[in-house]
């Protein structure tokens, strides 16, 4: 399930300093392999979002390198932010069309793919709705459909479910894993929830703040991710381990 594929992305000693004085991320090393689900877990200020923005190419690292297999960051990187970040003037299907539209694809030529992506997130019936007509969870599903419509090899998610209620969040966690299995992508997932990270990830990268840095990588060797796993002793033990690691990281800071 994890770590078996070729490297999708490598971070080598990546450091980010803001304004020449604030050390947001210190010497981060990370290898992401094809098919991985990796969580970056840590308190606010630990640089997890900074790491994600660096991977997305939204800013250059101050030091170190980010290596992609083809040499260049892929243009079809899927990204999901904490807010749904939809265009309010466009219907659901037009929002999902965006990444393809920016590549010059007409709506008619990709309509099937757009609707496929909507079906993937369970929103088949809402193609013509406007974002304001949807609930928070549904908006987030649109955002995920948009990230998946290009069938990217890598999807970056920045605390996508943090603003949702627990029940919606658990449902989306289940569905996210199902979607990932279906399109076979790699996911890097930023979260501050221990439970979410254990449930979703193959590997958890525990980070600490001031300066933001990686303190530990914890593998989550679970074969299935379902209700049985969520209620198992194994899950409880894993969350305890991860909480402990996070606690140590906080003390050390």
């Amino acid at each position, binding site marked *: 399930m994890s770590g078996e594929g070729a490297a999708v992305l490598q971070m080598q000693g990546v450091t980010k300093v803001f304004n020449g004085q604030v050390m947001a991320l210190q010497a981060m090393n990370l290898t992401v392999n094809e098919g991985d689900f990796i969580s970056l877990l840590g308190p606010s200020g630990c640089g997890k979002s900074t790491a994600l*923005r660096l991977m*997305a*190419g*939204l800013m250059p690292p101050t030091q170190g390198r980010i290596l992609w297999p083809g040499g260049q960051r892929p*243009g*079809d*990187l899927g*990204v999901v*932010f904490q*807010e749904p*970040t939809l*265009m*309010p*003037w*466009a219907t659901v299907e037009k929002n999902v069309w*965006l*990444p393809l*539209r*920016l*590549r010059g694809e007409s709506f008619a030529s990709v309509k099937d793919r757009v609707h496929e992506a909507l079906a993937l997130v369970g929103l088949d019936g809402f193609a013509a709705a*406007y*974002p*304001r007509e949807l609930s928070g969870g549904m908006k987030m599903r649109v955002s995920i459909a948009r990230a998946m419509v290009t069938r990217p090899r890598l999807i970056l998610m920045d605390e996508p479910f943090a603003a949702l209620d627990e029940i919606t969040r658990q449902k989306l966690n289940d569905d996210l894993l199902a979607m990932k299995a279906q399109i076979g992508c790699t996911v890097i997932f930023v979260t501050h929830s221990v439970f979410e990270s254990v449930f979703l990830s193959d590997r958890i990268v525990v980070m600490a703040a001031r300066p933001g840095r990686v303190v530990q990588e914890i593998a989550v060797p679970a074969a299935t991710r379902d209700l049985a796993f969520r209620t198992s002793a194994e899950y409880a033990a894993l969350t305890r381990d991860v909480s402990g690691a996070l606690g140590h990281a906080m003390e050390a800071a």
Partner: protein
Amino acid sequence: MVLETATPVDSDELARAQIARRDRIMRWLIPALAVVASIGAWALYVWAYDIPHYQLPSPARVANQLLVDWQMLGVALWVTLKITAMALGVAVLGGVGLAILFNQSSTAERIFLPYAVILQVTPLIALAPLIFLYVEAPLARVLICAWIVAFFPILSNTTLGLKSTDHNLTDLFQIYRASRWQRLIHLQLPWALPYFLGGLRIAGGLSLVGAIVAEYVVGISGTSSGLAFRILEASYRLNVPRMFAAMILVAVVGVLIYAATSALSWALLHKWHESAIRRER
């Protein structure tokens, strides 16, 4: 979206439906009554104190004058309406064009923004004589005047809208390697639309002000004269009822333009923008 209310199920809902119906009627009835009352007060005042019509004509006299002079005033109304609409059109082109230019090139903004501000803060009355000195064509004179007062709200509002796009959406466009042009067309312009429409409402009123002021100063006579010239002309002849009649028509032009920009705003925004959505309570 107004849904047909289903049969009320209980007295509470019935009461609420009644309140809603009354509210809908009152929304029209109260302002209509206010207009009728103020016209009535005006008529009563003229009648009770026996005010001579060259000081303050009665509403009936003004209405009569409007009918008598309709041929002349109707043409003037059409001229003023046309000039105002043209000025607004030019203000939209200039305002949006400059906003896009400033947004795309900070050098252009640094060069031209001071002049835009100077044009905005210098009273039109002070500029108008100079414009008439240098510009020959009467229509061009009036249009330039109206444009100077009307373009700025569109420029400043649209500029604000183009700048205030959601940061995450901007990031998303960068991640997908959108070109500047794509970002402008698919993100910034739609984002700026509600801001632009807000500016358009202000500019609509101002373009009428510009058209009227310009005509006051330049005074086009003959068949191409608008309402402002008719007011001036009537004042020289001490035809106060006609001044009132023409003034009412100027107000009508203003209301028409406001209604048109409001309708446009609603048509473009009602499906998605908060400002145009009526919430269920």
